[in-house]
């Protein structure tokens, strides 16, 4: 039952997408074109995110670590 209601909900979301972007009114070949374009853009965005986001996050993390981490190392060496 949960799967069925989930499937109904997803179908309803798909219908909303169709209505909002006017793809409900399009002929089949126009719909194909529109969806292909959308899915291509989405896949490109996701691929870019997949490649670049970890690198950006680790760089940012290292930057913040440098701000606080350097002091930490200094204190350790002084104490030693």
């Amino acid at each position, binding site marked *: 039952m949960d799967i069925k209601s989930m499937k109904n909900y997803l179908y309803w979301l798909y*219908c909303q997408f169709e*209505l*909002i*972007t*006017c793809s409900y*009114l*399009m002929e089949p070949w*126009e719909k194909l074109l529109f969806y292909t374009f959308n899915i291509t853009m989405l896949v490109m965005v996701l691929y870019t995110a997949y490649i670049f986001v970890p690198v950006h996050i680790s760089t940012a993390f290292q930057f913040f670590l440098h701000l606080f981490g350097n002091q930490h190392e200094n204190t350790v060496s002084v104490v030693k």
Partner: protein
Amino acid sequence: MANPSAVCNGHLHHHHQKQNNLLKSGIYKKNGITKGIKKNGISNGTLYKKKFVEHFEQAPMYVAVFTFLGFGVGTIFGYLRDFMRAWGLEKRNVATEREQQKDFVPLYQDFENFYTRNLYMRIRDNWNRPICSVPGPQFDLMERVTDDYNWTFRFTGRIIKNVINMGSYNYLGFAETDVNALKTVTIELQKYGTGICSTRQEMGTLDKHVELEKLVAKFLGVEDAMVFGMGFATNSMNIPALVGKGCLILSDELNHTSLVLGARLSGATIRIFKHNNIQSLEKLLRDAIIYGQPRSRRAWRKIIILVEGIYSMEGSIVRLPEIVSLKKKYKAYLYLDEAHSIGAVGATGRGVVEYFGMSPDDVDVLMGTFTKSFGAAGGYIAGKKDLVDFLRTHSHSAVYATSMCPPVAEQIIRAMKCVMGLDGTTQGLQRVRQLGKNTRYFRRRLHEMGFIIYGNDDSPVVPLLLYMPGKIGAFARRMLEKNIGVVVVGFPATPITESRARFCVSAAHTREMLDTVLSALDELGDFLHLKYSRYSKSSHPELYEETRLELED
């Protein structure tokens, strides 16, 4: 208990002042009672004698964003299709210029044609649907299918029966085929035939027209009236006769095309004030009187205010008391177009003048149509005898247009007599009251469900906002699948972001029909996500009570 309201001479006389709040406002003047009575905290000193509640709720911001997104996608695909059509990649179904005219000024490049070709064509199957029965509370529809995406249609031959009619202007339910009701019309048809073959000024004035005009004047409480064969032509042909060059027309933003056409044909200067906005109108009046005509600074020959009783796209009622007080202060004339409000509002169906408890002498020109509430065709102009006598000689419609045909005139006579009570029954009054009940019930339920509805609580025209272009087509088609016929309106008739479905409640609708429509709307509202209102009350307050009782146990 005996019914305290006695119908006599078409006017309601009340012997007990306390009952029936609705009619109090009109009765003061007739019985000479000047004692002020407080009702709902409004004393007799203010202009409005009962609450004036209008809704124009704005949808949340994301709705506007999605609407523009939808139109944007539609426009992009429109350009793509136009490109393909221009380069021969697609068959051309539209009207285009001939080869020899390619160097001329282009005919079909403006936005309206672009919109028609690319957006309207996709959902065209929801308009111009042919019906094949009387447009009563239910009607029969001819089934139509399209093979090439709405460019051409063909009829399958099947007839869809008993579709609930929420689109016809049948406010009092006089669009009927009952033989008893149409007895007098049949007799007149056999006596006069159907054609007049002449204009009013030549040989087209029949005794039926004289009888009808006297009846209309009595109904409205004015000195005289004149009837015309077509409602649109009444406006567009008579305004040029009343105003001319050197006059000023102050017209509401959302006036009907017939008023706009009449105003433009007259040659007068036209200034537009914001819809139902008294401050805007007052500012325009003051500027007109202070500054006069544009270059010569002379006083205007005439200042006339054009308003409608009920605006059919918004469902709003005109603020008549305030406009009349403005008109008296600044000495302007008032032209009131009661196309949708005559028969539909007011305690006895006499229009907005009665609804606000005012006297018909306050309005200079009363105009209305017989198409909406009386199940016929045609229009009238009523007012002082001098005005109507002037129009009889100077109106274009009287001189050139064929007059109203006799069976239609008889239908109006019998419908008006029914509403006034002159046929001996209270059927007319019952229809008016039933319309009021149906209107209030329908609007209340729609508000509770959470839809955005425009307009006044008492107007039988109910616009339900749809906003997005994709939903216009989906809504109309799905309602037809559920056997309910609705009218949806999009861009050029409404602003581009505010497309709507317009319901016209009728006195002939039974409670069951309205409930069917409301449950279908509920279901469709959930499926299409149309319930944008942020002020909806709980739709089932009685359930709340039940659970509270159970907990107390």
